C-alpha cells in the first residue's frame, strides 16, 4: 500500500504547498499495521464536508493506493477527520517530501 499526500493553500500557500509519499513496505510491521488500521477507519468514515467560508485554510488530499484499489479523501483545515490527521502526521514524519 502507498499513501500520497498533497497539501495546498493556506496563509503561506506557496511555502506550505508540498507533496509527500509513503510506501508502507518501508515501515516496520507494527507501524504498518497501525497505518492500515487508520486507513480502514478513514475510508469507513463519512467524507469531510467543506466549509466555503474558510479563508487561508490549507487543503489536503490523501490518496491511498493498494494492489486493487485507489481512493482519495480531501479535507481542509478545521474539518479533518481524526484518522486523516493521524495519517498526515505519520506521512510527514516518515515519508518523502517534494515541492509542489
Amino acid at each position: 500500500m502507498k499513501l500520497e499526500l498533497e497539501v495546498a493553500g493556506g496563509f503561506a500557500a506557496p511555502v506550505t504547498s508540498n507533496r509527500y509519499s509513503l510506501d508502507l513496505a518501508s515501515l516496520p510491521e507494527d507501524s504498518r499495521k497501525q497505518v492500515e488500521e487508520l486507513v480502514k477507519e478513514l475510508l469507513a468514515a463519512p467524507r469531510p464536508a467543506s466549509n466555503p467560508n474558510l479563508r487561508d485554510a490549507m487543503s489536503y488530499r490523501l490518496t491511498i493506493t493498494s494492489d486493487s484499489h485507489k481512493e482519495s479523501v480531501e479535507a481542509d483545515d478545521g474539518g479533518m477527520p481524526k484518522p486523516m490527521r493521524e495519517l498526515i502526521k505519520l506521512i510527514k514524519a516518515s515519508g518523502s517530501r517534494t515541492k509542489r
Partner: protein
Amino acid sequence: MAHRCSINCIVPPHILLKLLESKDRKIREIALNTLLASTQIRAKRDLLSLMPNATGTGEKRRTIFDAKNTEEDPPQGVRVRGEDDPAVGDTAVNEAFDGLGATYDFYKQQFSRNSIDGNGMRLDAFVHYGDGFNNAFWNGQVMVFGDGDQDLFVSFTKSLDVIGHELTHGVTENTAGLVYHKQPGALNESISDVFGSLVKQWSLKQDAASADWLIGAEVFTPGIQGDALRSMKAPGTAYDNDLIGKDPQPANMQNYKNLPDNRFGDNGGVHINSGIPNHAFYLAAIEIGGNAWDAAGHIWYETLTKNTGSTAKFQDFADATVGVAGRLYGPSSSEQVAVREAWREVGIDVRGIGSVRPERVRAASPREIRKAEADSLADLHAKVDNLAKTVERLARKVA
C-alpha cells in the same frame, strides 16, 4: 450581502416528512438532512437568543481560547483571556489579544467601523491550534492561529499583519463578500494584505515611505532565509531558497498566473495573483505620500465597503478605486492621478473617471450563480455540522 436561501426555506416540513418514505435512498437522505438542518438551525437561533455574549456587543470584546494543540471542528479550547482580563503568562495569547485590539482600534479610529460586521461583533481567536500547525485561518466566525512547526515557522501570532489579515477576511465577508476564486479571490486576499499591513503601519506610526510592506515578516524561524511570506513593495522577492522555493507572486498582469480554480490550485491562485493589486496599493500609497492609511487606505476602504460586488475582477476594482478617489479628493486630484497611475503600472488601464457605483459591477453568470448556490448549501451544511457537534458536546456535558 445577497440573501441566501436554501431548500430549508422553501420546502415545508410535511413534504420533507413525506419524502422520508421515498423508495429512493438518496431522496430519503436529502430529506432527512434537510429536516435535521432546519431543526438544528432553529435550535441554534433559540440558543443564541439566550446567550447575549454570542452576539454583537456594540464595543470591543476580545476573547482568546487555548486550543491546547487540538484540531477540532469547530475549534475547541479553554477561555484564557477576555476583554477585561490582564495579560497572562502565555505569549501567543497576549499577542493574539493585542493584535485583535490593534486591528479593532484601527478600523474604529480610521474608518469608524465597529468590528468585523460594523456592529460590534465579538472577536474570538484560538491559539495553539493543532500540533506544530503551520497556518492561520478564518473559519467564517473565529480566527485560528497555529504555533508553527518551529522548523519553518514560529507562531503565526508573531506578525501583527497576519492578525489584521485574518480579521479583514471577516470585514470583506461582511461587505463586498468577494468570492474566494480567481480574481475576486485574489482581490479578497489582497484586501486582507493591504489592511493587515496598514494595521501594522498604523500601530508602528510608520508612513508609507518608511514601512517595510512585508506580510508575515516575523513568522519564519531564524534558520529560514527569507524576508517574509509576501512583499507588497516587490512581489516575487519575499524569499528564494532551496528549502521553500521562490516567492511566485507576480507584480504585473503580464505575469498573472492561471491556476486551476480548485482547492489544489489555490482557488485559481488567490495567494499568488494577489501580488498584483497589492503592488498597485503600494504604488498608490507611495505616490500619494504620508500615511498609507489616510488617503490610499480610505480610497480602498470606501471601494471595498460600498463599491465592490462579490464577483469583482481586478479591472472592476481598479475602476472603482479611481472613481472613489475622484469623489473623495476631486476629479484629477493628485490622489486620483496616483491611483490611476498605480494600476497602469501593474498592467491595468482605467479610462475615464472610473466608477463609483455598484451597478458597474458585472452581473454574475448563470454558472457563477449555480456555484454560489452550491457554496451556500455547503455553507449551511458546514454550519449545521458545527452546531450538531456543539449540541452533542453540550449534551455530553449535561449527561
